């Protein structure tokens, strides 16, 4: 190992979608956890090949929607039947049909806001930048290559075996990924 840099992982580069999907399935089958795929465009079937779990966003969206509907109902009941009761058109103070449009709107508003916030959190947007973005690997991926990156943080990680796994499962080129000690950038 050269001076001033540490091994950060192993990168496998593929030329086409089929070999990427093969490599991703093999890595998932081997039990790796700290790894990811990088592609120039969204690839159909990659979620399944990587074994990604279903997103929790739909459930959160629904729950937030119901919360919004509940808030809307309570708010309107409190405003028009408790805090400032005005009888309109001889109707009861608590007239649910009149509240339905607001219940619907807040259902939509709450679920939309919750969805956006969850997407930001689940994308780990708190981290503004990944050093991988400046590496040569990304330069290839943003043009015409597909990359599988195995990180050394994974408990299964061993350089030789990881490289062999990638080479065996369809990657045309396998190269090590280093982290420079002075600024933490990946090369």
């Amino acid at each position, binding site marked *: 190992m050269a001076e001033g840099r540490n091994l950060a992982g192993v990168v496998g580069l593929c030329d086409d979608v089929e070999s990427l999907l093969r490599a991703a399935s093999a890595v998932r089958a081997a039990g790796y956890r700290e790894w990811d795929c990088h592609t120039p465009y969204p690839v159909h079937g990659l979620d399944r090949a990587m074994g990604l779990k279903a997103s929790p966003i739909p459930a959160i969206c629904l729950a937030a929607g119901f919360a919004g509907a509940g808030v809307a109902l309570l708010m309107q009941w409190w405003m028009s039947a408790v805090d400032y009761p005005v009888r309109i058109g001889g109707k009861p103070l608590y007239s649910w*049909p009149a509240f339905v*449009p607001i219940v619907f709107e807040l259902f939509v508003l709450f679920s939309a806001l919750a969805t956006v916030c969850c997407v930001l959190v689940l994308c780990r947007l708190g981290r503004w930048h990944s050093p991988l973005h400046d590496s040569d690997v990304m330069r290839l991926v943003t043009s015409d290559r597909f990359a599988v990156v195995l990180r050394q943080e994974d408990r299964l990680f061993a350089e030789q075996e990881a490289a062999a796994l990638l080479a065996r499962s369809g990657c045309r080129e396998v190269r090590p990924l280093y982290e420079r000690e002075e600024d933490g950038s990946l090369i």
Partner: protein
Amino acid sequence: MSGGGDGGAELLALAPLRSAGLARASLALILCGAVLCATTLLSEGGLERFSFAYLWGFSFAWAIVLGSLFFVALQHVTRAVWSVVIRRVAEALAAPAGLLGVLFAPVLLLLLFTDHCAPFPWSNADLVRDDHVLQGKAPYLNVPFFVVRALFFFACWGGFAAFFVRQSLKQDAGGGAARTARMRRVAAPFLILFALTVTFASFDWLMSQDPHWYSTMYGVYVFAGMALAALAAITLAVLWLRARGLLGQGIVSDDHLYSLGGLLFAFTCFWAYIAFSQFMLVWYGNLPEETVYFARRGGAWLAVALLLVALRFALPFFLLLSRDAKRSPRRLVVTALIVLAGELLDLYWLIMPQLHEDGPRLGWQELGPPLFLAGALLLHVARFLGKHRPMAVGDPFLSKSCAFHL
């Protein structure tokens, strides 16, 4: 992934339906219905009950056929590619549009050759004589003009349905691109005509049963139910044909089912939106001449109204909410059956309170016409599918449609 990769050979090998069972079942329905209709007509006060039940059954058949015609035209006007693999099934359901005109004959005959047709109070000269409102509406609500309008509607729907179905069938033999271009050109003006004719037909055949009452949203309410019923029928037919292997192996994919399920879900929300909007405006305005309509359909009919909310909105909404549900054939079948039951109940709730003000009644007198009309519709569809390929194999976008991915 897609079956389209195997090329046109598999698609061209798709054969028409060979099922004597379906034809036999529909003949049995027709026979049952006809016997029940005849017994009803011979019984005391039977003509009145028959005429209401006939309108009920007819509106149901009308909703499925016209909704399917709308679906076909919608695919052309939006230049949809995903739906090409299932469009022939919708065409099979839209093809009986001409038959609808024949099936409407009993209503027209009752209007023309008896002193009045029970569901339409404005056709009763004795009632009109003492009724200012009906006299004011007489220039529109009179028998000759009603008959002329009905004939125009059926000529229009029958003509356009024949055009779309025939062009698509001729395409099977060749001349794909030119015919597709022609259908796309015709679809846009047809949809405008469709909106107007369906609106006025719903005013004529359903809303005018309570001739004092009116709602400008009535047409779109009936249309929302119609679109739902047709989507449910198309989904059921697609799944049934697919399960029998008539639509090829893996050609109609999860993504196609998802699109059908998505439309079913969207129109469920659309119906709820329209139905509630109509109700809320009447409730808010609180004018006696408007609220009488919902007052009659609440009260003794409240249970039906609540069941309608469940069948039309709550159940389909939650059954189809998740992504996986829209791809699951079993879930789609269950939901489509619920939606069809909802359409039957909706039309029952629109029509029958005029006859039974004191609460819902469903005897064998009510069942004859729906069974007869459903049988007639099913027989026509079975014969269509028995004669023609179940997929539009000549459509230039078929292979793209096979490879459709969301």
